[in-house]
């Protein structure tokens, strides 16, 4: 499935919102891993 850059940016914001509203939901390593993956996805749009 493909995503637009805006959708991916929204995913990142949703991650931040989820982290803020329920910080105990995931371990820091898990949050960081997800964030890195979203950032890496965003970077692919910038390289195009």
């Amino acid at each position, binding site marked *: 499935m493909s995503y637009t850059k805006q959708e991916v940016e929204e995913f990142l914001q949703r991650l931040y919102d989820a982290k803020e509203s329920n910080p105990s939901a995931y371990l820091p390593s898990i949050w960081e891993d997800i964030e890195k993956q*979203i950032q890496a996805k965003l970077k692919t749009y910038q390289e195009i």
Partner: protein
Amino acid sequence: MTLVASGAISFGTTAGAGQTPKRSIYEELGISVTSTRSLGATDMRGLADKPGNGTISISDFYGKSAGTTLININTTGSSVTGTSVTLIYGSGYTTSSPNPVLSGGTLLGNGDSAKFIITDNTSTIKVQFNATVDVSTSGTYPYLTTYSVRGGTISNIVAPSGASVNSSDNSKLDVPAGTFTYPSGTPITTLTFSGTNPTASTPSFITGSNTVTYTAASGSAPANALATEAINLKLIKL
């Protein structure tokens, strides 16, 4: 299956074959009951929770379970954050190629007991303990299924000598100075274990992984790159 907690027990079937619980160590190991094994053999020591070169006796096998190995994997990457280094033991898991810890014929479920083993590049066991795991699937974004050590359940810490449950977070394990090296200093290292698997609702570019985070208990540097010191993670469902 688990070996009998007391009474007759044997290498082969002298104490009985096909018993419940088992009375044959070889049956529990899943090897031929006519095998010949030294008590000091690696798989024997592994079952008895007696790694290394210390004394081992047949009574060490009482109540032990070989379990089912879910992953036995060398590190596939790392990342550094502050005074922590996170080693990745398998990544890129998707719904069609899922994390074997959390999907498949045998998987880790919420409340299951598991054995965690970290070995170095000489196959020496650096860390080994048992714990109950929490497994849950987020009902909200990003919908991942995750596992982690349930607080207060770490037990049977076989290695390293002197390891203990972290005093402020009992889901973490503290290992003594010297277990893992640092660019400078010799702090205690705190270990955190977790893993993830995406669900059908997870954005498809977010994948799952198994990770162990090694955090310096003091000082300012993360543990050295641990590709040699913690090359392998084995996770066994008991």
